[in-house]
């Protein structure tokens, strides 16, 4: 489903984010990507979303080379990926409701009524049913993170890309979010999670890819956090 073929990303010659990385992720997998800060985890997700271009190598998503796609096709691929960004990347001038509804509106598959119903439902699910008309700046970090998650899952993507989704959260919120990701995965969605939270990875008992200085140093099927 997702394949990295000998992918390198070199910013400057002494700043190599990814160095000849290859791996394959099958549908419905739950993969944790771990490593220290600067190991290349975020770059990896950016390359998959075609937010950045690789210096060499190819990235495939559902057999399409994402960096060979035209602008007219790229956004369609992105609609199949639900991304949860480290810095949330919510739309600051849109309300919580609009941030979620926007995802359904751009797809143009739903009527306004359906969009409203789906949006309220997903916001109830993440516990923000009472804050739909708030702006992101009015929310706490944990609440923003939940909006980001709601946005990522609302249109039932094929894969969830979660970049340090628990980085800013207290342990209680962290557990909620990890449980939510597990639930999404059990319902059949592929999940890629980057983190440096040891407890999460150890509790998951799922596949773990370990990055170190841009290289894959370990790829275990039921891995633990070993650095």
């Amino acid at each position, binding site marked *: 489903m997702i394949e990295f073929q000998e992918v390198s990303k070199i910013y400057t010659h002494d700043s190599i984010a990814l160095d000849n990385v290859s791996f394959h992720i099958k549908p419905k997998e739950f993969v944790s990507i771990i490593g220290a800060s600067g190991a290349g985890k975020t770059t990896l997700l950016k390359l998959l979303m075609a937010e950045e271009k690789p210096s060499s190598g190819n990235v495939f998503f559902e057999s399409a080379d994402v960096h060979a796609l035209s602008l007219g096709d790229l956004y369609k691929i992105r609609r199949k990926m639900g991304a949860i960004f480290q810095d949330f990347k919510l739309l600051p*001038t849109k309300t919580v409701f609009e941030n979620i509804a926007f995802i359904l509106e*751009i797809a143009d598959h739903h009527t306004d009524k359906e969009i409203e119903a789906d949006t309220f439902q997903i916001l109830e699910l993440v516990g923000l049913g009472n804050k739909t008309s708030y702006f992101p700046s009015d929310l706490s970090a944990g609440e923003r993170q939940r909006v980001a998650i709601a946005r990522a899952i609302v249109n039932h993507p094929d894969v969830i890309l979660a970049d340090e989704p628990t980085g800013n959260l207290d342990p209680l919120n962290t557990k909620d979010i990890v449980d939510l990701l597990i639930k999404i995965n059990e319902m059949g969605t592929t999940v890629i999670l980057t983190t440096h939270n040891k407890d999460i990875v150890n509790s998951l008992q799922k596949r773990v890819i370990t990055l170190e200085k841009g290289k894959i140093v370990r790829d275990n099927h039921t891995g633990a956090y070993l650095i």
Partner: protein
Amino acid sequence: MNSQLKRILKYGLIGFWRNGWISIAAIFTMVLALFVIGSLIFSSALFNSTLERIKNKVDISVYFKDATEEKDIIAVKEILSSLPQVKEADYVSRQRALDEFREKHKNNALIIQSLDELGSNPFKANINIKAKDPAYYEAISKFLNEGEFSGAIEKINYYQNKAVIERLSEILDVSQRTGFIAGLILAFIAVSVTFNTIRLAIYNSREEIKVMRLVGASNNFVRGPFLFEGALYGLISGFIALIIFLPLTYWLGPKTLAFFGGPNIYDYYLANFLRFFLILVIGGAFLGVISSLIATFRYLKD
């Protein structure tokens, strides 16, 4: 598509409303720009009518020898009228010249008395010629001098006034060209100020544009609301400028009429209202859309 368009318009309106201060700043700048463009149109109307009036004051007369028969003079007049450079050729008979002179100086006893003492009519029959452009007088005079009827011509007063006419014609040319270039530069400044204001407004949203694209919005869906916002800026600014000109021209109208000798710009404004509407409101909206289109382009190209 219909629901997509509706959503794009909705987000355009929301953006316009929520970016309140930016919208106000953009509209304020655009009103100034459109006001400059509108003022240019008024200035050019005043300027051109003034130039036209000066041009009209220039004419030449060709005087005929006393022995020339009237039908020959009228024949020359017909030929002159048919020339493409000639706007007007007016035959003035000896009697008419005398009458006009008497009428003009009827209050001056000395002149009338001298004329009476003279006994005969001292005036010559002539044709008064107005060219479409002062630059043509040279060619018209030459044509008369070298034509078959040159023998009947006593004199052409162009040659006495040649230096003045040429100089005037030159000044008119230069001022017309200078006015045009100055107008062009001012219009260009007005347009670029508008463009840059909208560009700044959109620059402010660059992160949002990036996020929208990352979550799968098509370029058209991202761009659409900004184009609509640009159109709104233009429409509102155009209407404001249109309204400002009403009391302003009403107040200035009599003054311009007195100073330039016409037209009254208030009457001019009302007579050309549709044109001003098209230029300020529709042109403003167009300018807003184009500016937004160019400004968003750089955030959507890869």
